[in-house]
């Protein structure tokens, strides 16, 4: 764990905190430690963001450090690129997944490529926070899982926490990173809670490492972000069928932790990738292909995928049919050719 993630000064005992609070605290601590950290986006100031993740930052650090921008995502990200060129460390908030799309050209053609184009002369120490995924009853364009777009763009790191601890630790690391990080926040976990203290983040693994959230021997569930709780619940339920499922939380899609993932699957011989993004062209294909390339002779069954349907994100009243739930995960596990 890099030293930048240790909170300065005070010590506090762990107590219940939400992922939203941990994210807020990560930005606050980063801003307090490093005057080059600037938070910017739509409504991040007085309002504290529509999810309140930047709550209080403008008040504590002033509007120049936590800035309400005009309403234009390409402009926000483009300006952040220029700020980074001058040595600042911008943390950009996109209001919702689909509202990051206007910034796609800046992201793909500049943010991702700047270091490479300039042979390392211009770093892009940018963090782009994007609340993503569904399950909160949002109307259209408010629930997209857009990670496949970012994964397919070399030069970006793509990180997504699934726990309160990781929300703090990974965001601190993302902000401290000299590379651009697309930081995907599973919005339906914003209000999930855990006992947590910013003073004891030592247990947090760095970006690029997957973590075993539940050890098991029958099969591996490979997942991340919003689907981690689903997989943990499925693993509990699976014990009734006699399956002892290992649950892996990827935490970072880029870089991808082939080592940890392959080690697990080699041990269990079976795997299911679970994510909320649409299946076709989603992250699961890449993950299943990598795992198969590395573990082919250890596999008792093809790596299966449980994903969102291959349809535009549904309206609120139908979203439950889209989201991969415990039953679908268990169905997939059942199809892992146990009879073989």
């Amino acid at each position: 764990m890099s030293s930048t993630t240790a909170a300065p000064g005070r010590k506090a005992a762990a107590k219940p905190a939400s992922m939203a609070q941990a994210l807020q605290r990560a930005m606050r601590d980063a801003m307090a430690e490093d005057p080059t950290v600037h938070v910017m986006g739509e409504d991040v100031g007085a309002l504290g963001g529509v999810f309140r993740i930047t709550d209080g930052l403008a008040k504590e650090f002033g509007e120049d450090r936590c800035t309400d921008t005009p309403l234009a995502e390409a402009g926000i990200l483009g300006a952040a690129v220029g700020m980074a060129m001058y040595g600042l460390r911008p943390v950009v908030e996109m209001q919702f997944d689909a509202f990051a799309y206007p910034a796609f050209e800046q992201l793909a053609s500049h943010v991702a490529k700047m270091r490479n184009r300039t042979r390392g002369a211009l770093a892009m120490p940018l963090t782009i926070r994007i609340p993503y995924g569904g399950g909160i009853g949002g109307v259209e364009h408010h629930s997209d899982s857009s990670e496949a777009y970012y994964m397919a763009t070399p030069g970006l790191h793509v990180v997504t926490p699934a726990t309160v601890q990781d929300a703090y630790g990974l965001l601190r690391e993302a902000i401290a990173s000299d590379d651009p990080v697309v930081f995907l926040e599973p919005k339906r976990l914003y209000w999930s809670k855990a006992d947590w203290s910013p003073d004891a983040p030592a247990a947090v693994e760095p970006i690029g490492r997957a973590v075993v959230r539940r050890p098991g021997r029958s099969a591996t569930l490979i997942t991340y972000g919003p689907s981690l709780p689903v997989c943990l619940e499925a693993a509990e339920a699976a014990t009734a069928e006699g399956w002892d499922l290992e649950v892996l939380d990827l935490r970072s899609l880029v870089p991808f932790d082939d080592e940890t993932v392959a080690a697990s699957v080699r041990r269990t011989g079976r795997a299911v990738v679970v994510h909320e993004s649409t299946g076709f062209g989603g992250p699961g294909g890449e993950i299943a292909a990598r795992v198969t390339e590395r573990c082919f002779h250890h596999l008792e069954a093809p790596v299966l995928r449980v994903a969102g349907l291959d349809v535009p994100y549904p309206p609120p009243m139908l979203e439950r049919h889209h989201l991969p739930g415990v039953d679908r995960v268990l169905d997939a596990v059942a199809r892992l050719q146990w009879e073989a």
Partner: protein
Amino acid sequence: MTIQEMPGSTAYRPSPPPAWKPRTDPAPLLPDPEPYRVLGTGAAARVDPALMRTLYAELVRGRRYNAQATALTRQGRLAVYPSSTGQEACEVAAAAVLKEQDWLFPSYRDTLAAVARGLDPVQALTLLRGDWHTGYDPREVRIAPLCTPLATQLPHAVGLAHAARLKGDDVVALAMVGDGGTSEGDFHEALNFAAVWRAPVVFLVQNNGFAISVPLAKQTAAPSLAHKAVGYGMPGRLVDGNDVAAMHEVLTEAMERARRGGGPTLVEAVTYRMEAHTNADDATRYRVDAEVEAWRDHDPIVLLERELTERGMLDDDGVREAREAAEAMAADLRARMNTDPVLDPMDLFAQVYTEKTAQLCEQEAQLRAELEAEAER
């Protein structure tokens, strides 16, 4: 307050500066320094009394609609509601100036404009209720789907108006956007396309002072949003958005200009969002009550009632009638929204493509099996 016809610009070819000519005379494109007003001014005498009374009834109905939708949201019947309370004059006027064949391009805040155009409120609210994304057939009612990604509906309006003009059809598109939306690239690109193509489209910006929490001063440094028009070579008009008669007059003029081939107009309506951004928003975080209060006296219904009453065109009966009609609409809406819509999950697959792909058929079969299993439990 005349609007000059924009001279065709296609003759322009690059020429060395000694022969420079501006492609358009900028002067007529610039907005007046003050928002145009009718109510409470001499201009009010010109307005057709029947129109005034119709608009009054619509405003009262619109206010009631907003209140009812807000109440339904509190009762959990809508997923979210962005209220246009305080902005009813803009919404009502936008609908009133459209002919049958014209098209409306509303944003998420403009369900009232759609309702005022004649759309069933239940259909208008489908998106916000959450049973589907669009609750009506846009071609049938000539209202584009309510648009959430800001300003993205504006190029659609331009394209549709352009297509209609190419076909020789008498169709004008009226596109609505907020003050915040004017900062988006799509706003710029749409206005530029419209002017270059001389497309019959009217852009109505409702400047309600805020983009969620962000006040206009953090959105733009322009003298007014209407001043943006000159940069595209179209006229910009600045109007009091709470003065329904002024709104009606300015929009009518812009629509007519578009209709006779004069090209697009940008109208900035100065108004105020009296409620929070949506029910999910907490406006106390970014504005003080005193500011809201200052606008109460300039309420669109108050302004029109004052004018009509002073001129003896509205009595207690008139007020009562308007209110009763509004109540009837609200009661009907309430009754019809207080039921759980019956949904078919198979609809998820029905219209992704013209024909379902094999892949979608597989997923549909799987979901059907799941639902059957669920039903058996």
